[in-house]
């Protein structure tokens, strides 16, 4: 375990010192600035509109804006997760970075574990901070706070951690570029499947619902994201509650306890597959 911690520290240091983090931070600052502006303008507009007694405009605007920000955070978190892990094995081996580390007595499993822990820690911290900033901005601008903010944040964090694990597994088989493309394609496929599921629910099309169901098991980051979205307005009732359940982006879905258990099992399965594949890989 101590070997894995050494590698995790190394991965953290690498993440901090590489330019990708600066790019992500720059994009994040831009996003938060624009998001803040968007919130102020939107809530001012909402206040000036004639309010419908049956719909809480503030809840509708706040949850929609924060839901949209969660999609952006998921995307930025996914970018970070992929860039931190896409070349962790084959890419680093092709560049000659990996071999001196693998020759050391730490063992391949510790190396993988350390790389995952480092990437997951950076991504999780990033998502938590940006999500917290978005919640704060929304709250200060419109005096609206999510119903289950911590639960929503947890869904988002786990979604990004799952993407990091998928990318690390892919890095054992694919070159850096191919792995990056593959993970982003899976990311897009997962989101598209989620969207199809929402359409299937709205139109009662069983095939679309089945596609969404299967994809949420195979690619659980989408289900986690939807569970996170659901947490924003989980306790909102009445017509407002009905309306926000349909949105805000890609649809919110209440997750059963099984999703959290499956996420842990999914990560364990990825870890086992990665361990097996890496142990058999010639470097």
């Amino acid at each position, binding site marked *: 375990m101590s*070997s894995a911690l*050494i*590698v995790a520290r*190394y991965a953290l*240091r*690498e993440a901090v*010192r*590489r330019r990708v983090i600066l790019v992500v931070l720059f994009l994040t600052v831009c996003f938060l600035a624009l998001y803040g502006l968007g919130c102020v303008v939107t809530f001012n507009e909402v206040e000036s509109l004639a309010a419908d007694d049956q719909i809480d405009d503030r809840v509708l605007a706040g949850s929609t804006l924060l839901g949209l920000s969660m999609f952006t955070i998921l995307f930025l978190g996914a970018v970070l997760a992929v860039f931190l892990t896409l070349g962790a094995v084959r890419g680093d081996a092709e*560049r*000659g*970075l990996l*071999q*001196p*580390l*693998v*020759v*050391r*007595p*730490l*063992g391949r499993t510790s190396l993988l574990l350390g790389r995952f822990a480092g990437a997951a820690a950076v991504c999780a911290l990033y998502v938590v901070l940006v999500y917290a900033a978005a919640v704060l901005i929304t709250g200060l601008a419109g005096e609206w706070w999510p119903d289950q903010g911590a639960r929503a944040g947890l869904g988002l964090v786990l979604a990004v951690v799952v993407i990091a694990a998928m990318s690390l597994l892919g890095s054992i088989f694919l070159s850096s570029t191919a792995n990056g493309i593959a993970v982003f394609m899976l990311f897009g496929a997962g989101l598209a499947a989620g969207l199809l599921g929402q359409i299937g629910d709205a139109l009662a099309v069983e095939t679309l619902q089945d596609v969404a169901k299967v994809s949420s098991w195979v690619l659980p980051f989408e289900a986690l994201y939807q569970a996170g979205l659901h947490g924003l307005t989980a306790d909102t009732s009445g017509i407002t509650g009905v309306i926000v359940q349909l949105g805000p982006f890609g649809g919110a879905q209440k997750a059963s306890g099984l999703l959290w258990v499956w996420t842990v099992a999914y990560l364990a399965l990825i870890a086992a597959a990665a361990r097996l594949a890496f142990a*058999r890989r*010639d*470097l």
Partner: protein
Amino acid sequence: MPAALRCESLEKRYGATVALGGVDLEVAPGELLGLLGPNGAGKSTLTKIACGLVRASGGQAQVEGAPTGSAEARSAIGYLAELFRLPDWLTADELLALHQELAGSEGGAAERGELLELVGLAEATNTKVAAMSKGMQQRLGIAQALVGSPRLLMLDEPTSALDPVGRRVVRDLLRDLRGRGIAVVLSSHLLSEVELVCDRVAILVSGRIVARGTPLELARPRGVEIETAGGVRTFPEAAREEVPRIVADLVAAGERVYSVRLLASTLEDAYLEAVGAA
């Protein structure tokens, strides 16, 4: 005491391609073995199997009696790859500190300082890898391989990016390591380097060892060269024992003899002969 490295009928196949076709090799503790061969001969594969980076398809290899790839074997090895790259966001000192942690070395700053001194990088302690020349990085790579005092050092083309002074530093370093009882397997295309420092040489062609021995054993007599008043005369078939008779014949024939030189093939000649015959 077990051999630093022992390979028995070692094989490695990549599909239909045979990278190693049954290699038997033994490196004694403190021995400096030169591994020669053309590109694709299997030198890097052999080195990587010894380091546990590549799995053998057949036969076996052991480091100090432990199977290659095991934690015991890896803890005895230091390695510098042919196509290596060091993390360019680290300084020389940070890189060595990382490897100290991974190797479980308790040498601390003293070991790091000594290693950097040994490879001539004492002034570059806080220099980032990104700011180093390729030659400096190669020397730092050797220092990294020496972290934790390995008993077997596997060096794959360690002087390819070095200038003559850098090569001299590495040559002296290798002699120093031999003095400390560290076995070294030096894979190289620079035959003159290998001839200068190695105790033994193994020539690998198409995954098989086609010649082995000391550089002197591999070098063959190529006759006698005698300088006379009439010019330099060569006797390509003559052996050392025949020199007095040849000189006596020349003197009897009225020649004035100024010098006699025994001719022997270089390691390069032996190498080209072995590669050509294979």
